[in-house]
């Protein structure tokens, strides 16, 4: 069966040859680079993987883009952007894929999907320690263990973390 992208619950902002997708169901925001965007846009259920690969090969001017398409589909599927989940390649295939992708890197033909989940965005905006790390004027992300912050600036005082729900 040919891959089909999910459309429901998504708002797509086309940014040149990239796309940013707002997922109103999960609250996540996804950034698709040129190759990922091309694959995502073309997954209409009528286009098979071979045709997708030929499209990427033509646009990026590379000889063989099958692995890049597979990787893009896996990345999109893992983020819930495909209607039918696509299984992740096994370890041997992923290792072989790495070799092929190295060759595609120069042509910028590697797909990339960056995601900020709602939880990550919330953590970025809503939690922080009230005191600066020792020797600095700011707070570095750390891990709180028994009320003390453990990071590259071990802090002698109990962490005061503001986490607003």
């Amino acid at each position, binding site marked *: 069966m040919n891959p089909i992208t999910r459309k429901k619950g998504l*708002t797509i*902002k086309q*940014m*040149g040859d*990239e*796309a*940013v997708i*707002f997922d*109103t169901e999960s*609250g996540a*925001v996804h*950034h*698709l*680079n040129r190759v990922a965007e091309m694959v995502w846009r073309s997954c209409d259920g009528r286009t098979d993987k071979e045709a997708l690969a030929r499209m990427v090969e033509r646009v990026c001017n590379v000889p063989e883009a099958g692995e890049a398409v597979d990787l893009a589909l896996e990345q999109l599927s893992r983020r819930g952007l495909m209607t039918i989940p696509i299984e992740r390649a096994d370890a041997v295939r992923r290792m072989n894929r790495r070799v092929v992708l190295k060759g595609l890197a120069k042509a910028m033909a590697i797909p990339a999907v*960056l995601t*900020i989940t*709602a939880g*990550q*965005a*919330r953590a*970025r*905006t*809503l*939690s*922080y*320690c*009230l*005191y*600066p790390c*020792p020797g*600095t*004027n*700011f*707070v570095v992300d750390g891990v709180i263990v028994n009320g003390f912050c453990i990071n590259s600036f071990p802090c002698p*005082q109990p962490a*005061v973390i*503001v986490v*607003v*729900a």
Partner: protein
Amino acid sequence: MQKLDRLGWAAGVAFTSFGLSIGVRVNTPDVPADVLACLPPGWVRQDSPVVDYLLSLRLGGVRPRPGVREFHLLYSELRPSTRTTDRDVALTILETEIQLHIARQAQNRVFVHAGAVGWRGRAIVLPGKSHAGKSTLVKALLEAGATYYSDEFAVFDAQGNVHPYPRRLSLRRPGGMDRVPAESLGAETGKDALRVGMIVRTEYRPGAEWQPQRLSSGKTLMELASHAMPEVTQTAAGQDALGHLALSVPAYRSFRGEAVSAAADILRAMDALPLSPHERSSP
């Protein structure tokens, strides 16, 4: 709410800010000046005591009896928010709760966690998470002659212009934090909305040099969205405003060293940017 109401509230203030009606009640005979100082910039007192969002701050005793710890308690609506013996912590969290409510719910405005300053008629926006060095960089920019807009939230309208949110700067020092008005740094505070000239995503790294890399419009939108409230990025208005900004404003990313030299580099980069056709035609 009835249990909370029974705690004995003696005074309060109801106000509007960015189209929202907010109240803070306290257990002291009057609302203390340091509580009023936590209210958002530009707040306007409202006559009606009926509000959409209520914070309840029970201040512990100034001189607790021996052997008794008197906590400061803060409730956001019914949710217990803070229980602390440190009054400054309680007030900081009160201010944060109010700011976050406004940032999530403000009408016709999009709040992004970012510092913002004005420079020669255009704004520089510095997205970054809370207390990650934004205020330090904003302070250095102000000392270099920039106009103060905010050290915490860049407030955008639908056209992508940035509006002032001139709260007191939060400047950390060993063992605590100072709240400093921009005027005390000799800086002017912006009054009008400004067109954004440049977005700069920067983080402090000891010894780092300023080596800006231009961000694509897609990555710029991701930066803005990741520093906006999740509630905002799920609205069409929020997505449109941020998308418009990302397409129309150049954005750069670089690690930075000390704030003073980074500020000089940023202002030089801003001066080197060409004016938009609209700006060229302005007097």
